[in-house]
């Protein structure tokens, strides 16, 4: 049974009515085309309306949709000759982050990305896409390797956040994330960051310091998960919906804040409703961006990356008479 959200119910109900009517017409040999046409028209309008006016919280739900394509689904189609590479060479391999090398439109690239599970079993194996330090250190190793062999880097962002637990702290979760951020900011290769689901906190940022941050239409990126934010601000994680409304976490909001560089359209209703179309749209965005970045000189690329992050933030300049 596919996951259906409350706000989608009118669409789903109408679509099933149409399907019913069609099979009824077939069975009885009736011609109901006009009626069906009207209903289909209504369904399409309803979809446009509902999916065009999603609240931030509804976007969070779509970004977390269990059937939403993740990094591996996109890699499978986008990247040919993909070879997965594992391990951080220090402690272990972390399945919450996948990485490897392959070709994008014929050009060798390095790919790293968070990986949530598609079912309970995979989710347990991949810790729901929440990485330990070894995951970030694996990513770091592959990023440096990409630089050594002068391959562009593509990162997929899809994580609720870094794992929070004893082992993660003991092995230096903070240090691992900090190191990734610093190293990425100066990697001498083009870096394309694709936010494909939810980007949560430092655990997402650890793979996000790129030349371009492209966000899928229904993806979100936030300073912490709405649940964690609600718990910090209001001491009540149940107010996640309220937090989502004020955090400015949608692709549209982040384009406005100049954090996202572009929005990649999704099929109506979200990537999970038409995976093929979603992948096509993603590929064409990456293709365009790749051409742009590979045409830039190394120094120009690095300067632009520095400027991109350097400029982020809003402050006032008050008179100097003291606070």
């Amino acid at each position: 049974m596919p996951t259906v959200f409350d706000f989608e119910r009118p669409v789903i109900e109408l679509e099933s009515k149409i399907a019913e009517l069609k099979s009824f017409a077939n069975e009885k040999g009736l011609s109901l085309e006009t009626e069906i046409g009207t209903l289909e028209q209504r369904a399409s309008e309803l979809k446009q309306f509902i999916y065009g006016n999603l609240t931030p919280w509804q976007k969070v739900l779509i970004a977390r949709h269990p059937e939403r394509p993740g990094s591996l689904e996109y890699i499978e189609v986008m990247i040919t000759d993909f070879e997965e590479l594992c391990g951080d060479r220090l402690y272990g391999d972390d399945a919450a982050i996948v990485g490897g090398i392959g070709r994008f439109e014929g050009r060798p690239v390095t790919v790293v990305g968070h990986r949530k599970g598609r079912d309970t079993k995979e989710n347990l194996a991949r810790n729901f896409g929440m990485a330990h330090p070894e995951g970030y250190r694996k990513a770091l190793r592959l990023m440096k390797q990409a630089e050594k062999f002068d391959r562009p880097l593509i990162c997929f962002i899809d994580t609720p956040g870094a794992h929070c637990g004893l082992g993660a702290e003991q092995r230096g979760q903070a240090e691992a994330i900090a190191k990734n951020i610093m190293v990425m900011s100066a990697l001498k290769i083009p870096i394309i960051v694709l936010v494909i689901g939810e980007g949560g906190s430092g655990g997402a940022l650890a793979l996000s310091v790129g030349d371009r941050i492209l966000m899928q239409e229904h993806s979100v990126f936030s300073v912490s998960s709405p649940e964690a934010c609600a718990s910090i601000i209001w001491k009540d994680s149940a107010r996640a919906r309220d937090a989502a409304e004020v955090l400015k976490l949608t692709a549209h909001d982040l384009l406005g804040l100049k954090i996202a560089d572009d929005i990649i359209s999704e099929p109506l209703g979200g990537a999970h409703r038409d995976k093929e179309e979603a992948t096509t749209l993603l590929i064409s965005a990456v293709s365009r961006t790749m051409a742009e970045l590979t045409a830039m000189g190394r120094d120009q690329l690095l300067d632009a990356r520095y400027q991109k992050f350097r400029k982020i933030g809003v402050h006032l300049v008050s008179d100097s008479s003291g606070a």
Partner: protein
Amino acid sequence: MVFDFFKKAKYFTVKQDVKRDIPEGLWVKCDLCNEILFTKDLERNHKVCQKCGHHFRLTVEERLHITLDPDSFSEYDAELESSNPLDFPEYSGRLATAQEQTGLREAVITGEGSIGGHRVVVAVMDSHFIMGSMGSVVGEKITRAVEFAQENRLPLIVFCASGGARMQEGMLSLLQMAKTSMSVGRHSEAGLLYISVLTDPTMGGVSASFALLGDIILAEPGALIGFAGPRVIEQTIRQKLPEGFQRAEFLLEKGFVDRVVPRPQMAGTLAGLLSLHERGGV
């Protein structure tokens, strides 16, 4: 039942920590060992409890006072102030209250001064200002200080004290991690020294950025240092954390800090380290 009732009444105990009538400001109770300390003595001891060695949290002013050579400090970017870029509910009010309570414009003060005669760029965070959280202004001031240090080929010392990224500025706060780390990376590439001093608490988005990127990382005894907060971890794993978990000594043992330095020795240690990095020798 009745006997139980009388029994209980007989044995009712007086709590040990009944509020004593302490004149405001003259005495202070140690958070750790509950010892009542004479404020003047505590201040003379760099706000370290004489009985148990607990390091009280410092204000920026206190930190600058005990660290820098007298009258050597000059502040940068004092005029930078936070706005409420996301129109986050109640944020403007919280900023105003924090400013009023601390007398600071934001959670970090940056500038330059000298330690043992060595010129240095410093940034000092203050946990009394919205838990030292990092929003746009904290990130901007630290980045400008790092850039100034790089342009002028000066060493950099950051005293970290922060709960992490400031929720009320959302992604703008998260991206300050990238901005600050990036500038620290360039400073490092230029062959310059960055000493990070972790004080209580150094958590979240600050520990996961510039705080843990120092060439040399020192910590104050007992400082809480980590990525996820201890309460969050306890809720997630549903068990109590071991004694001393995420404390400075724990990080030393795990290899994430170079030294745990008691506060009275901090300025001397910093002066020594700065001296060892002076170019051209004496």
